[in-house]
C-alpha cells in the first residue's frame, strides 16, 4: 500500500513534467482549468485544431496512447505510468476528449480484429490524432438493448451494402473513420446475426446530423446510411460474430482508466468555501457541511477505487465490471450536486447566463447536462445489472427474446 511514487515512477514523472512544461499550449491552460464536465470551450480558438496539434506533438515525442505498442504509435508504458502522465498533463488532458472513443474503443478493437497491414496503416494516425474515429453501435430502437439494432448489412460480392440509422454517435461530424455494428441475419436470435466493420466516414451515403440535446448543446449525432458500400476487407471478425467483437470494444471501454469520473464535488467544495449565506460562510453551516461530507466520501471513494483498478491492471489483472460503479455513482451525484449548488444560491440560482450566475453558470450547465450522464454509456439500471450479474453472480433478467428470431420480436409495447 503506497500512494507515493517509487524512484522509477518519480523519474518518469519528472520526465513527463519537464516535457509538458516545455511543450504544452500554455496559453489555454487557465481556460482549460476552469472548464468542467465536458464543456470545454476556448475563446478565439478552434478547439479541434488546438487538440489535434497537441496530440500530434505528443505523438511525435512518444507521449501519445502511452499503453499502446510502439509499432502502432504508442509507448508501451505501464498503467501506473499512464496515471502519472494524466496527473501531470492536468488541464491539458481535457484536450483529449475527442480522441477518447478512438483511443479507448476503436483502436483496441482494431488491434484485436483487423489485419496487420490495416493496423499499421490505421493505428498510428489514430494515435497521433491526425485521424479521428467514432463508434457506431447505438440505434433509436436499441437503447439499452444494444443487440436490438436494425441497421442492415447485405453482402454483394466482395462488398457490403449498409442501410439504416445510428444514434448518439459522439464526434461523428469530425470523425474520419468509424467502427460499425450491423445486422447481417435477421432470421436468427438477435445476438447471433450481427457483424462488425470499420468504414471511412466520408464514404458516399453517410449523412451526419447533429442531435440537439435537452441541455441545448449538440455533443452527439445521428448517422444515416443509404446504400453505403464497405469492402469485405474492412470486416472485423467473422460474419455474424459481431456481438463478440463488440464485447471486446465495450470491455476496453472499461479499461480506459483515467483520472476518474467527474462527480462535481471539487467544484461544489470550492464554491461552498467561498460562498456567504445570510448567516455566515456556507462552509460553517452544519447542514452544508453534512451534505458536503457525504459527497466528499463518494468522490474520494471513487478516486481510490479507480486507483485500485490501476494497481490490479499493473499486476496483469483484467479490470472487471466492478469499474461500472464509477459511472453509476458519479452520474446521479453530479445531478444532485448541481441541484444543491443552485439551492445554495437561492432564487438567483435559476440564472444561467455567465454574467448573472455564480461561477459563470457552471452549476446551471451541470444541471442541464446531468440527465445525460445517467444514461450515456449504459443507464444506471444497466450498470446495476452488470454489477449484480457479473460481480455478484446473480441471475440475468428473464430473456423473452433469447431464442426468438430477431424479425419476430415485437417492437411496440401497446
Amino acid at each position, binding site marked *: 500500500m503506497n500512494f507515493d511514487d517509487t524512484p522509477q515512477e518519480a523519474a518518469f514523472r519528472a520526465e513527463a513534467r519537464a516535457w509538458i512544461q516545455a511543450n504544452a499550449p500554455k496559453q489555454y491552460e487557465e481556460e482549460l482549468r476552469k472548464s468542467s464536465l465536458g464543456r470545454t470551450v476556448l475563446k478565439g480558438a478552434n478547439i479541434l485544431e488546438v487538440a489535434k496539434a497537441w496530440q500530434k506533438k505528443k505523438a511525435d515525442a512518444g507521449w501519445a496512447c502511452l499503453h499502446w505498442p510502439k509499432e502502432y504509435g504508442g509507448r508501451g508504458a505501464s498503467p501506473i505510468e499512464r496515471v502519472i502522465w494524466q496527473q501531470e498533463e492536468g488541464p491539458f488532458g481535457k484536450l483529449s476528449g475527442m480522441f477518447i472513443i478512438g483511443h479507448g474503443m476503436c483502436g483496441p478493437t482494431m488491434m484485436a480484429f483487423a489485419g496487420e497491414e490495416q493496423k499499421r496503416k490505421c493505428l498510428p494516425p489514430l494515435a497521433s490524432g491526425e485521424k479521428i474515429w467514432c463508434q457506431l453501435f*447505438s440505434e*433509436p430502437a*436499441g*437503447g*439499452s*438493448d444494444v443487440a*436490438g439494432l436494425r441497421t442492415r448489412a447485405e453482402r454483394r460480392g466482395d462488398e457490403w451494402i449498409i442501410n439504416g440509422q445510428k*444514434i*448518439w454517435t459522439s464526434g461523428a461530424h469530425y470523425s474520419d473513420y468509424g467502427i460499425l455494428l450491423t445486422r447481417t441475419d435477421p432470421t436468427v436470435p438477435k445476438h447471433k446475426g450481427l457483424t462488425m466493420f470499420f468504414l471511412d466516414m466520408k464514404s458516399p451515403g453517410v449523412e451526419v446530423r447533429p*442531435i*440537439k*440535446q*435537452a*441541455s*441545448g448543446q449538440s455533443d452527439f449525432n445521428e448517422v444515416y446510411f443509404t446504400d453505403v458500400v464497405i469492402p469485405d476487407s474492412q470486416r472485423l471478425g467473422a460474419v455474424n460474430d459481431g456481438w463478440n467483437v463488440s464485447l471486446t470494444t465495450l470491455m476496453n471501454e472499461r479499461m480506459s482508466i483515467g483520472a476518474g469520473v467527474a462527480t462535481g464535488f471539487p467544484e461544489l467544495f470550492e464554491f461552498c468555501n467561498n460562498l456567504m*449565506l*445570510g448567516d455566515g460562510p456556507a462552509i460553517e453551516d452544519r*447542514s452544508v457541511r453534512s451534505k458536503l461530507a457525504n459527497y466528499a466520501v463518494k468522490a474520494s471513494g471513487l478516486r481510490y477505487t479507480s486507483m485500485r483498478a490501476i494497481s490490479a491492471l499493473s499486476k496483469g489483472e483484467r479490470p472487471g465490471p466492478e469499474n461500472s460503479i464509477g459511472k453509476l455513482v458519479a452520474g446521479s451525484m453530479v*445531478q444532485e450536486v448541481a*441541484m444543491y449548488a*443552485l*439551492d*445554495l*444560491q*437561492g*432564487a*438567483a*440560482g*435559476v*440564472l*444561467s*447566463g455567465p454574467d*448573472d450566475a*455564480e461561477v459563470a*453558470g457552471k452549476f*446551471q450547465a451541470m*444541471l*442541464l447536462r446531468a*440527465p*445525460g450522464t*445517467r*444514461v*450515456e454509456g449504459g*443507464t*444506471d*439500471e444497466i450498470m*446495476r*445489472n452488470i454489477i449484480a450479474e457479473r460481480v455478484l453472480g446473480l441471475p440475468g*433478467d428473464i*430473456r*423473452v*427474446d433469447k431464442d*426468438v428470431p430477431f424479425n419476430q*420480436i*415485437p*417492437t*411496440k*409495447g*401497446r
Partner: protein
Amino acid sequence: MNFDFSDEQKQMRDEARKFLTEQCPPKAVREVLDGKAPYDKALWKGLAEMGFLGVAIPEEFGGAGAGHLELCVIAEEMGRANAPVPFSSTVYLAAEALLLAGSEAQKQKWLRKIASGEAIGTLALFEGKGNPSPKAIKLQASGGTLTGVKKPVPDGAIADFAVVAARTGSTGRDSDISLFLVDLKTGGVEAKSLTNVDPTRGQAELTFNNAKAEPLGAAGDGWSILTQVLDRAAVLLAFEQVGGSDRALEMGRDYALDRIAFGRPIGSFQAVKHMLADMYVSATLARSNCYYGAWALSTNAAELPEAAAAARISATQAFQHCSKNNIQVHGGMGFTWEFDCHMYYRRANATALTLGSLSYWEDQLIDRMRKKNAA
C-alpha cells in the same frame, strides 16, 4: 370533514385541463422555449376570457370571486401544461399582495386589469443570490421614489407593474421594510432579460432609478405582508409543481408501456416499475400536503404558515424527482431537445428556487413547527 375538492371544483379542473390541452400543447410551450416570444400572448388572452386569471379575485374587482380552492385547481393545470405565461407572478404574487394590502383604488385599478388580462404583475423581492430576508433588501425608498436593483424578478421584462420590497428604515428590524407599487410603464425603471434554466418563464433584472412608486400597505408592514404573500404563493406554486409531477409521471409511465427493449416493454422491468412507483409516492405525498395547504389558504387558517412550508417542500421534491426520473425512464431519447421531458425538468428546477430555495423552506418549516409547539 372532507379532504377533497368539491365536484364543482373538479369540474373546473376538467374544464381548465380541456382548455389547456387545446390551447397549450407542448408545441406552444416550445415557441417560448425557443425564444420566439417572451410568453404565449394568445394563451394569456384565453386564460382571461375563461376567467382563470381572476378566479380568486372578488367580483367587485372584476374577478370571478370563486376563491382560492378554485385557484389551486387552476394552478395544478397550469403546472401540468407547463404553461409559458406569467401566471404565477401575476396571480400568486402581485394579485395576492394587492388582495392583502392594496387600497381600494389600487385594487380597483390593478386587480381589474389582472382579471381582464390587461396587466401583468410581479413581485420584485430578491437582490442577487440568497433567500427571502429583510436584511437582504437594500433598494431604497425615499420621497415616493425607489432606487436600486432587483434580480431576479420573475417575468420582470414583460410585467406592467411590480410590487416592490424596499428599505424605509435602518433599525435592523423587520419594520424597516415597506412595499410599493410601481407602474413599470411610466419610466424610471429599466428591465433587462436574464438567461435562466427555464426559458419558458422569464427572469429579469429591474433597475430602479428614482422610479415613482406608491406605498402598498402601511409603511413598515412590508415584511409582514411579504411573509403572507410568500406563504400563499407557496401553496399555489406547490399545486403547479404537483401538476407538473403528475404529468412527468404519466409521460414516464406511457413511455414504459410503449417502449420495447430485450423483447419486453421496459415497464415490465422492476427497475423501471419501481422507479415509477417511487415517483408516484412522492407525487402523492406532495398532493396530500398541498390539499392541506389549500384548506389552510382558503380559510386563512392559523395553520397556513406551517401548511404552506410543508406543501412547498414536498411539492418541490416531488417535481424535481419526477421530472428527472422521467428523463431516466426515457433513456437517451429523454435527453433530446425533441422530447418534452426536459421542459418539465427545467421548470421543476426553476420553480424550486422561486420564493426561496428548498433549504430555506426546510428551515422555515421547522421554525414554524417549533413556534406552534412552544405555543
